[in-house]
């Protein structure tokens, strides 16, 4: 008996060993490393010098523009994504013909797994001088500038992250008990109040998941602001690339990265809280 327990534990350890090692060496330790760096000082030749100081954090306002752009455009982008994604998810889950549903869903997922770089490049090309502006010039609107504006970045964000927003909303709508919709209509609710009181309400956990996921990924976005924002609209991601690969101020970059992670955690916690509260309220309402 005892030997069996031993064997069971040994096998479990063998199965989990490689994953544990991987997680510790390439997730936990690196995180500890940047946490340590963030309270250090920049060595004169770049890189790191051991210290214990909060100078780097006090210096965060030096990159206020990057924080500001990210903190404005990430929620705005997630919101824009949501506004476009909701009707699509609604149609796929509740209106689309059965045999088309999976095909349409696959068509939503595929772009997400194809290269973001290539897809953003496509928009660079569409919005750039030879794309839409050239067409507009053809019909008489000269000098329209689309690329390298916040609008272009926002468009790229919606384009890049739309599938990630559609999926969770679709899942929550698809699980929705259709009888509730009928019950609501039978009890004399107008379609609009059925939508607001039942459909939208019950899909809010999906909305929160999508919103927080997109928002967190946007906080670390680099490619979209670089390619569609030119040098003009830069995010925290751009600041990090600059600090780590060009100006080699690693301690300051680490402080920014830690701040970024903390903001992400706060976003996740808030979204989680809202979701729990909403689903709690939902249970009470239904009984």
């Amino acid at each position, binding site marked *: 008996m005892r030997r069996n327990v031993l064997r069971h534990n040994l*096998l*479990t*350890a063998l*199965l*989990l060993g*490689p*994953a544990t090692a*991987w*997680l510790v*060496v*390439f*997730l936990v*330790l*690196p*995180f500890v*490393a*940047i946490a340590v760096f963030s309270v250090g000082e920049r060595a004169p030749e770049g890189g790191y010098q051991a210290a214990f100081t909060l100078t780097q954090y006090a210096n965060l306002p030096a990159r206020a523009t990057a924080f500001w752009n990210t903190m404005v455009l990430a929620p705005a982008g997630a919101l824009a994504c949501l506004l*476009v994604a909701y*009707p*699509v998810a609604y*149609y*796929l889950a509740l209106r689309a013909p059965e045999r088309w549903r999976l095909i*349409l869903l*696959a*068509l*939503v*997922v*595929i*772009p997400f*797994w*194809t*290269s973001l*770089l*290539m897809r953003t*490049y*496509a*928009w*660079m*090309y*569409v919005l750039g001088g*030879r*794309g839409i502006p050239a067409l507009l010039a053809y019909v008489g609107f000269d000098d329209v500038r689309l690329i390298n504006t916040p609008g272009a970045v926002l468009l790229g964000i919606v*384009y890049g992250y*739309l*599938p990630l927003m559609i999926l969770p909303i679709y899942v929550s709508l698809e699980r929705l008990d259709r009888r509730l919709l009928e019950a609501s209509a039978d009890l004399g609710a107008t379609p609009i109040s059925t939508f607001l009181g039942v459909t939208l309400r019950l899909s809010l956990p999906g909305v929160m998941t999508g919103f927080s996921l997109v928002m*967190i990924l946007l906080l670390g976005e*680099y*490619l979209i602001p670089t*390619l569609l924002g030119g040098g003009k609209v830069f995010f*925290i*991601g751009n600041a990090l*690339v600059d600090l*780590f*690969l060009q100006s080699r101020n*690693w301690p300051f970059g*680490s402080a920014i*990265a830690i701040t*970024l*992670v903390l903001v*992400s955690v706060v976003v996740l916690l808030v979204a989680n809280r809202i979701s729990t509260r909403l689903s709690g309220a939902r249970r009470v309402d239904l009984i």
Partner: protein
Amino acid sequence: MRAFVVAVFAFLYLPIALVVLFSFNAGRHASEFTGFSVQWYGKALSNPFLIEALKNSLFIATTSALLAALCGTAAALGLARVGARTRAIFDALLGAAIVVPGVVIGISTLVALVQLFGVVNPFLASLWPNDQPPRLALGYGSIIAAHGLFSMALVAMIVGTRLGSLDRNLVEASSDLYATPLTTFRSIVLPQIMPAVIAGFLLAFTFSFDDFIVAFFVAGAQTTLPIYVFASIRRGVTPEIKAIATIVLVASVLLVVLAQWQLRQRKPSN
């Protein structure tokens, strides 16, 4: 509503379609289509730097996806055997590996590895006083490990979900009929989770092959295809990029479709 959905699908696919169309443009310029030609494909495939970057990407994606599929599957199997608390810790770590932005994974891995090499390399040098000592540096290994982190977590989650829906009765029936645990695993569990493992592998491959930001930090002197393409885009658009973008897009689409198809495979009867 239908019109809106159609418009959204057009929005999703038109820019990609334009890139594909203009990759066959005979002219150099994007503003007009001057005739059908595959010359940019020829140019792309005869560019030695591009081919080198493509080979690197294929090697890195294959290796990291294989390792991720193995370790991720093992982890999912292991997690089915541990208590709730251990499981919660692992789930949190795996979730973090997926959710933490790529840019943070990239820089933290860079920082940690550079520190580590700073300690290990002098030590190695002291062991080889006369010869050329082996030196650890950023390159294939660091990209594979950093990509594998995300991919392994992804595989563990996909396989874990599949394991959760596995029919326990079959496993019990198998052991009641005196099958050894290994036989039960081989003939009951493995066939049922295999589609999830393959789907995980394919998604891991696609992720690694497409990733720019993580590799950008930890690549050292190596170049992957996305890094090469990014550099070319910044230097000014070259028509070859459209050809290579088309090839990559088509390959990614095929892989994703294959992965989706695998995930939807019915569990084998009998």
